[in-house]
Each structure stands twice: as structure tokens, then as C-alpha cells.
């Protein structure tokens, strides 16, 4: 490859990425325009997008793309000047034309210049604007994988912002991962250096000052790298504007998507895992949640349903809510299904929240599918799996006739955890700091026996605890005094009896590899300042496991 080849490829890449950006914005604006036909700003935005694509395509020699964009622009011009009015049919036509452009651009780059038949008919319809006949061809499916690769890293850029664009760079995620890894390793190496200094050099000396400066800088570096990895949820959310519109139309319903908290940022690596669950939940909301317009009218609701995607920060978590104002969950039906599935628990004794959790069970959703019951559940286990893979949780709240809210809680980042170090024998374990409530000395009477589990009196309340040494069957002797860390997860409190408390610090999470992932009670690993590997405890799953152990087994001394 010569330099010019590389340059040209870079230009093409930019063209593809930018066009995708414009098309997404145009899509968004079109949907907005449908709701507010008089919105000149949306019209302008669509027009600008088409115009830029036209110009770029022409300058790169993609004549057909240019022509198509020109026809698109022409049609908009007529809408802008009021020659034509904004109708649903025309919006649909324009949306399909956006799809067509999305296909044509990669096609043109790979050398396919000619219009496909559906593209040609769209082209004809664009140029012949009086054609008001309802288009019959099904909308071409958008190529999701392509969109996925192009999604990341694009935001805020606008057609007008050429200057700004010159200051942004697209970076491969793998490079960012590598940078974060290196920053983590620097922190580890630095920890070692400090240990050496502690034993060899007196505090306050020049070496110590240099060390302190190094510490500040490496913490800064890590923070900066973390920041680079964060992307706003807005562009992810906005993709669903179109999904909601198309699904609603296909189901004979009317619905729109409301967005809140578009500026909230999530870790880049989460974006991938969020797409499937969001799609699934939005689909469910439209299939089962939002009622047909006539039903909604009868019930005194706005005939157009509202699905809201909302993101906000809550402590160390990011919360994403999918809210619909539809029919809500049918408690009786879910209870019936739970009974049918032969669960050991009597559904009637459960609170709504507890009962709704069953929707996330894999068997539950299959059963619903077979009987074709109208209730949620199809594929909700996929949602749960994806969310759990992100160390997050999902809960459902619903009011009959008023709608359903699914709340997803995710850690701020997948790469770094605020951890609390505890020691058992030679091993160090890290507890996620957000679960840690307080630390106490294990009462003497509990220190006598060496059971795996026990109960302590925490200011009058009985709190169960797990002795990590016995639970994990670790070798070595118990110290005379043990400590207990009170942790809380999902509203349940428990204690973890350990030998030592090492305190809180930030740690970079390292995956445990193919063989060791999905271990119960272990969320991952981290490398300590000493260079040792410490395991990160999955407090929630440990507590669940402990709750399932029978008292006999639980107290048996291994």
C-alpha cells in the first residue's frame, strides 16, 4: 500500500463514519418531524445532512449516491418551502431513503454503483413528489452489525462543526483497553516501589517526594483513560426512536419514545451488552405493554403510547429505566404461570416485585411463548443474562393499567472497581466497596466455634455471617481475633468473617479467563500492589449460595 492509498482509505473511512452519523441524525429528525410537522429546525437538520452526504459523495466520485442524496434534498426543499406538506407517507418514504443511502454508501465503496430495484423505486418516488401512493415494499432491514461498528465514538459532531471534527480522533477500543491495562500495571509497579521505599528510605526525603508525585500522576492518568472510555448513552438511546416508530406501526399501535438523561456516560464496553437487552425490552413494551389506540382512548389515555428510556446516576451505579405507560403486568397471570411451572413457593405469598422477578427466568419465557399468553417474558432471560454479565441487576415495577418500569442498575465502569480488601490467611479478597456497610470485631462467643456460618447480634438485629476461611476451605490457622465486614446487597444484610481488614482502594478488574469465569461467588480478580492476584468477591451470589446451603452443611467444619 502506498501512502496515497492509505490516505484515501482514511478518507473513505471518515466518509462512511460521517455519513452514518448524518443518517442517524436525519432519522432522528425525521421522526421528530413526523410528530411536529411544522418543526423547521428538524427540516433544516435533515436537509443539511442530505446536503453534506451529497457533497462528500460527489467529491469522492460516488455519482449515484450523490444523485440519490440530491433527489432526497430536492424533496426536502419542497417540504421546506411548503410546496409539499409533511405527511406520514412522505416521512416513511424519507426514512426508507435513509435506509437506502445507508446501503448505498458501503456498496459504492466496494464498487457497486448501480441502484438496486428498491432503491431505484425510492429514487423515482423522491423525484416524483406527487406520488402519494402508500409504498408497499417492506422496509429494508437495517444492517445492525454495520451500525454497531460505526456507532462508537460519534457524538456532538455536526455538519457545521468541521473545525471541531478536526480535533477529534477515532480510536480502536482495543487500544484503549491496552492503555487501561498499562495504567493498571503502572499502579501495581508503583505500589511495589512504595513498599521498597517504606523499608529503605526515610519519609520526607527526595525519593519519597518523587514517589508521591508519581502517585498523583498515575492516578490522574488512570482517571483520564477511564474518562476516554466513557460515552454518552444518547446515541445508543436515539437508535430506538426508529425501532419504536417501526414496531408501533407494524403492530397497529401508536407510540413514541421519550429520552431522558442522554448525557449520562457509560463505559464503552457496556454499550455492546446493552443493545440486545434494550431492544428486547422495548419490543416487549410495544408488543405487550402499549395497548392499541382505541383501547387507550377508552381507558382515557393518550392514544399515542409513550415509552421512555431514562438514564441517571445513583451512587456508584448507572441506572437505566425503560418505562412504558401501557397496560402493566397481569399479576394473576404471572402467578398462574409460576404455579404451573411448579415452583416451590406459593405465588400468592410473594410481593409484586418478588413475583415479577419470575419473568426473568428462562423457563418462564419459553412457557409463555408456547401458550402465547399475552404477558411479558419472551426473551427476558436474555435481558437478565446480559445485565448480569455487566455485574448489574434488573428489577420490574408495574401498576395495572398504568404501565411498567424496568430498572437496570449497572456499575459505573466494568474496568475499575472501588474495592475493600480483606485478608484470610495468605489470601486477599476484594469486596466491592458499595456493598460494604461497616466493620466490627467478631464477638468472642462466635469466635469459639469454627463454623462456616453463624448469626451475630447487630444492634439487636440478627445478622447471618459467612466465615470466608471455612467457606472457601482455605488452609491455615484462624487468628485469635477475627473481624466481620457487614455487607449489603439487594436489600439483604450479611456479615463476612475474615482475618484482616486492609481497607479501601481502587483496583483494575482482570478477567479470570475461559476456565474460571462464571465461578459462583467470584466476580473477577485484581492484581495487588505486591503483585499477587486477589479475587473479587461477588457478594450477592455468595449470599445467595450461603442462603441455599442447608444448616447442617453450612455448619459442618471442613
Amino acid at each position: 500500500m502506498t501512502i496515497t492509498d492509505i490516505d484515501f482509505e482514511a478518507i473513505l473511512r471518515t466518509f462512511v463514519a460521517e455519513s452514518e452519523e448524518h443518517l442517524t441524525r436525519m432519522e432522528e429528525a425525521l421522526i421528530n418531524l413526523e410528530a411536529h410537522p411544522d418543526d423547521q429546525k428538524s427540516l433544516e437538520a435533515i436537509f443539511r445532512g442530505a446536503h453534506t452526504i451529497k457533497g462528500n459523495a460527489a467529491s469522492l466520485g460516488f455519482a449515484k449516491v450523490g444523485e440519490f442524496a440530491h433527489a432526497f434534498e430536492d424533496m426536502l426543499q419542497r417540504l421546506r418551502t411548503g410546496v409539499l406538506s409533511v405527511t406520514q407517507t412522505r416521512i416513511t418514504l424519507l426514512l426508507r431513503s435513509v435506509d437506502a443511502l445507508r446501503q448505498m454508501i458501503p456498496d459504492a465503496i466496494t464498487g457497486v454503483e448501480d441502484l438496486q430495484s428498491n432503491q431505484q423505486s425510492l429514487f423515482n418516488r423522491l423525484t416524483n413528489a406527487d406520488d402519494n401512493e402508500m409504498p408497499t415494499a417492506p422496509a429494508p432491514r437495517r444492517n445492525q452489525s454495520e451500525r454497531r461498528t460505526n456507532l462508537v465514538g460519534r457524538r456532538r459532531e455536526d455538519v457545521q462543526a468541521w473545525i471541531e471534527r478536526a480535533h477529534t480522533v477515532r480510536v480502536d477500543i482495543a487500544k484503549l483497553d491496552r492503555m487501561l491495562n498499562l495504567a493498571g500495571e503502572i499502579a501495581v509497579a508503583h505500589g511495589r516501589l512504595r513498599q521498597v521505599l517504606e523499608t529503605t528510605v526515610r519519609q520526607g526525603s527526595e525519593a519519597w517526594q518523587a514517589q508521591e508525585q508519581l502517585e498523583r500522576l498515575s492516578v490522574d492518568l488512570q482517571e483520564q483513560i477511564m474518562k476516554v472510555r466513557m460515552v454518552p448513552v444518547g446515541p445508543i438511546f436515539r437508535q430506538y426512536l426508529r425501532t419504536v416508530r417501526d414496531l408501533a406501526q407494524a403492530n397497529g399501535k401508536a407510540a413514541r419514545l421519550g429520552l431522558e438523561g442522554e448525557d449520562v456516560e457509560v463505559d464503552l464496553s457496556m454499550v455492546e451488552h446493552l443493545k440486545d437487552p434494550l431492544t428486547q425490552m422495548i419490543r416487549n413494551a410495544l408488543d405487550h405493554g402499549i395497548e392499541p389506540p382505541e383501547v387507550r382512548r377508552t381507558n382515557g389515555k393518550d392514544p399515542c403510547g409513550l415509552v421512555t428510556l431514562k438514564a441517571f446516576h445513583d451512587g456508584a451505579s448507572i441506572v437505566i429505566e425503560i418505562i412504558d405507560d401501557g397496560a402493566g403486568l397481569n399479576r394473576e397471570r404471572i402467578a398462574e404461570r409460576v404455579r404451573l411451572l411448579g415452583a416451590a413457593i406459593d405465588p400468592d405469598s410473594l410481593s409484586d416485585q418478588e413475583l415479577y422477578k419470575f419473568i426473568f427466568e428462562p423457563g418462564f419465557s419459553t412457557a409463555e411463548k408456547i401458550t402465547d399468553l399475552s404477558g411479558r417474558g419472551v426473551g427476558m432471560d436474555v435481558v437478565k443474562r446480559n445485565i448480569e454479565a455487566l455485574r448489574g441487576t434488573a428489577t420490574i415495577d408495574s401498576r395495572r393499567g398504568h404501565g411498567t418500569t424496568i430498572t437496570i442498575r449497572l456499575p459505573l465502569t466494568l474496568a475499575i472497581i472501588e474495592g475493600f480488601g480483606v485478608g484470610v490467611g495468605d489470601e486477599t479478597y476484594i469486596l466491592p466497596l458499595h456493598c460494604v456497610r461497616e466493620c466490627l470485631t467478631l464477638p468472642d462467643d462466635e469466635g469459639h466455634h469454627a463454623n462456616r456460618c453463624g448469626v451475630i447480634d447487630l444492634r439487636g438485629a440478627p445478622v447471618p455471617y459467612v466465615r470466608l476461611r471455612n467457606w472457601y476451605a482455605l488452609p491455615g490457622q484462624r487468628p485469635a481475633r477475627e473481624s466481620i465486614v457487614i455487607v449489603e446487597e439487594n436489600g439483604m444484610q450479611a456479615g463476612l468473617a475474615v482475618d484482616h481488614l486492609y481497607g479501601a482502594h481502587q483496583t483494575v478488574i482482570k478477567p479470570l479467563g475461559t476456565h474460571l469465569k462464571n465461578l459462583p461467588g467470584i466476580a473477577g480478580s485484581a492484581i495487588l500492589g505486591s503483585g499477587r492476584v486477589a479475587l473479587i468477591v461477588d457478594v450477592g451470589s455468595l449470599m445467595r449460595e450461603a442462603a441455599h446451603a442447608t444448616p447442617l452443611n453450612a455448619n459442618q467444619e471442613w
Partner: protein
Amino acid sequence: MSETRSAEQTQYLTFHLAREEYAVSILKVKEIIEYGTITIVPQTPPWIRGVINLRGNVVPVLDLAIKFGMSQSLITDRTCIVIVEVDMDGETTVMGVIADSVSQVIDLPPSDILAPPAFGTRIKVDFLHGMGKSDKKFFLILDIDKVLSIDELKITATLPNSQGEMTALKELSQEGT
């Protein structure tokens, strides 16, 4: 692909494990490190000794002696960890295996590799590339990709042996509820 590779490559690393000598293709060996601190990973089969920090990466360390049904390796001054690159469904995974001692790197042209006998070897024939000979003694050439394949590691995990009882019992107690 393994045929072409074995035709080209003639070097093997030999090591001792429970007083037996084994060999593994040098192309699979990334490095050999001293046995250091290993972090125990609870609730895993006994032949997973734990994980180590290999320059910022967390790498599992396995005890093949236990996996092959012998008693657990005793740690001595000469114990080391052979870091191998294993091909797993097309993905390269780095793992460590404990060796009582590492002996030598030997040249072994394909013509000198003997087919293993139908039975009588200490480990399953499936795990072997063949047998080699040095100083009038046979040694087993391991097909490390097969020994450490995901399926293999899973199957062994469910077989309780003397060391595995604890894990197995624990699993049972959880299933019983």
C-alpha cells in the same frame, strides 16, 4: 494443520511430573517461570491450583499430576510453572502447568516419534502425540491442546476423586436444596 506443524518442528521441552517424564512441543511453550505465590481459587476442581499474575495478566495454573490421577505435586525448589499457549476453539489461551522439574529441550525428528501403544500408558492415548525416547527411557509427548481443552477440563471437573470429594460434596449439598 497439526500434521504440517509436527512435520516442521522437531523441538520438544521435557519435564518431570510425578517421577514420569513428559514432553511438550516447544512451539506451545511460552516461557518457564519459577513457582511463586499462587492465589487459591475456591470452589474449583483440585487440579486447578489457582491463578498467578503473569506481567499483569491473570493466568490459571493447573496441576496435571492430579488431572492424570496421580497425587498432587509437591512443591520443591525445582518446581516450576511451564506457561503454555493453548488453542481453544481457535482462540489462544495462556495457562500454566506445574512441573516438578524441567529437564531439557531435545531435538526429535518426526521419524523418531513412536505411536503410543493401545494401552498401558499412564494417561489416555487421546492426550498423546506419541512417545519419544531419550537415554533408553520412553517419555510421553503430550498434545497439550487436547489435555487442556475446555471439554476435557469440564469433564474432569465433575469426576470426584480423593481430592475432588470436597468440591463434589459441596455441589451436592447445593443441589439438594
